[in-house]
């Protein structure tokens, strides 16, 4: 049995189901991401795990113990909120120490643990500041430290990085992953950002309209999306209708076809003839729009040098690896 088991969980507001038939699990020390578009029920699911929102059916097992009806104070679960939820009237140190004070931890141990965890999230030196004197990234690290210091059995993170700018988000993401591995923490991380999910997770649970669409490793979801929704959500796929794909690849398909842009080779000596329409620069990758047999495709190529850039109108040949052509429902 896994460390965290969620079985047939459902929740509704009035007659409207928020989510239903939710089954997933997490092993000890695993980082599972709940990924999905806004309003798919992932945040409510997280609140149900924490005990902050009551469930309408199913059960939650943590470390062999059923916690479905246990008060949030006694679940041994900590949570990091999107809004940080730092106590504005307390300093960084008092915020972090709050949970230990509630547990009546001895003063010397409290001091030691708070100092330790502040060092872990690289906040030493800021102990005496108030939340309003900190940047967004620092605030979220205080929130993380406050959750870590109580040594929770399970740590929940509700879109903790979405209010931060891209560079800080990346840095904090790596920091969370490092700490999670160091402490062998079990984490459930909610996000709507597929890049965040792919880079962080051991496993991704992809949700849509209150249901789990696919549950698997990041690699599986990326390379073997179950349907067009997964393909569209998890990566920048070329999604072609069956007849369009048939025209391009010269054979018949019964379903839609998904082709990843980086699996198409441009400089092949033989293959399908095409013409560059335009390009956009995505940092280390150039994304071309190529028209071949009347079908427009995205093709990703590593950005090696400015001289290798193909101008609009250039004639190219496309080679598409057989294993990268996926039929999706």
């Amino acid at each position: 049995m896994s460390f965290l088991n969620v079985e047939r969980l459902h929740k509704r507001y009035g007659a409207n189901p928020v989510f239903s038939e939710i089954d997933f699990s997490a092993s000890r020390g695993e980082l599972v991401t709940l990924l999905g578009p806004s309003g798919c029920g992932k945040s409510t699911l997280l609140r149900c795990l924490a005990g902050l929102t009551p469930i309408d059916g199913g059960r939650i097992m943590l470390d062999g113990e059923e916690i479905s009806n246990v008060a949030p104070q006694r679940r041994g679960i900590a949570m990091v909120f999107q809004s940080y939820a730092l106590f504005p009237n307390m300093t960084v140190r008092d915020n972090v120490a709050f949970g230990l004070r509630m547990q009546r931890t001895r003063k010397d141990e409290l001091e030691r643990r708070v100092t330790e965890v502040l060092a872990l999230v690289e906040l030493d030196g800021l102990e005496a500041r108030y939340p309003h004197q900190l940047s967004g990234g620092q605030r979220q690290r205080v929130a993380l430290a406050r959750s870590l210091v109580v040594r929770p059995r399970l740590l929940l993170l509700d879109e903790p990085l979405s209010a931060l700018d891209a560079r800080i988000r990346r840095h904090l993401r790596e920091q969370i992953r490092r700490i999670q591995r160091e402490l062998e923490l079990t984490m459930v991380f909610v996000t709507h950002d597929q890049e965040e999910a792919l880079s962080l997770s051991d496993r991704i649970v992809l949700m849509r309209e209150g249901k789990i669409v696919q549950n698997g490793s990041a690699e599986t979801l990326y390379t073997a999306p179950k349907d067009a929704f997964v393909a569209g959500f998890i990566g920048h796929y070329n999604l072609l209708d069956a007849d369009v794909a048939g025209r391009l690849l010269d054979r018949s398909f019964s379903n839609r076809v998904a082709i990843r842009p980086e699996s198409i080779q441009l400089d092949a000596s033989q293959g399908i003839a095409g013409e560059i329409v335009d390009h956009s620069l995505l940092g280390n990758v150039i994304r071309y729009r190529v028209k071949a047999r009347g079908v427009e495709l995205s093709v990703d190529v590593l950005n090696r040098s400015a001289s290798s850039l193909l101008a609009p109108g250039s004639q190219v040949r496309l080679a598409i690896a057989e294993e990268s052509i996926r039929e999706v429902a």
Partner: protein
Amino acid sequence: MARASMYHRLVVWLLLLVLVLPLAATLLYSLATQWSASLLPAGLTFDWYLRLWSEPRFLAAFGRSLLVCAGALAFACLLVLPAMFVIAYHFPRLDAVMNVLILLPFAVPPVVSSVGLLQLFAGGPLALVGTPWILIGCYFTIALPFLYRALTNNLQAIELRDLMDAAHLLGASTFRAALSVVLPNLRKGLVVAVLLSFSFLIGEFVFANLLVGTRYETLQVYLNNMRNGSGHFTSALVISYFMVVLLVTWAANRLNRDPSSS
């Protein structure tokens, strides 16, 4: 451009003059030894103030006013704070109802509601007319809108639900979380609202005069009863009262601005 600016300045100065002139005249009159047939007072003296502040009847009235205001505000805080918390946290939809309710004391003119209160509390088991208790109850309803508005703004500024959730998950009970996480963040708004309500209530006359009158003489009723006495003396009283209100309002503004206490 310059002419428009001149015009704006003129309007502001004129307004200021209209507002300050009566006060300045009262101040001067309260400091004058005699001022009747001449353009300027005959001489200046602090005598009226000394007499006022050593007058036992004035001091008693002032004390009573303080007591009634403090009582009403303490009562309001004790009742409104928990009620607001429960509404904001458990029944946020009731906020709309409360917004209508707190306007009711403004909807009925004091003279009209006094008549009603006189009828209701003149006899029977709750014969409160003539006692300070009816004033405390009355002032409570007047202070309610000020307190409620200020606290609602404060509550909206903090993420109440997330803060409570975070505290709960860290092991705090609802009571403990409200006490150590929510209440300290409302302190500033509460103090400002209390001070402003105080400066407003201490000048209240209609209810005090109609419901209690001389049976429990408050500051404004005392001032009214003194109207046939020396004008210099009542001027000193008005200026003293004004200084108290000014001081309290200044303190409220000061607290409202101070960023370090946020």
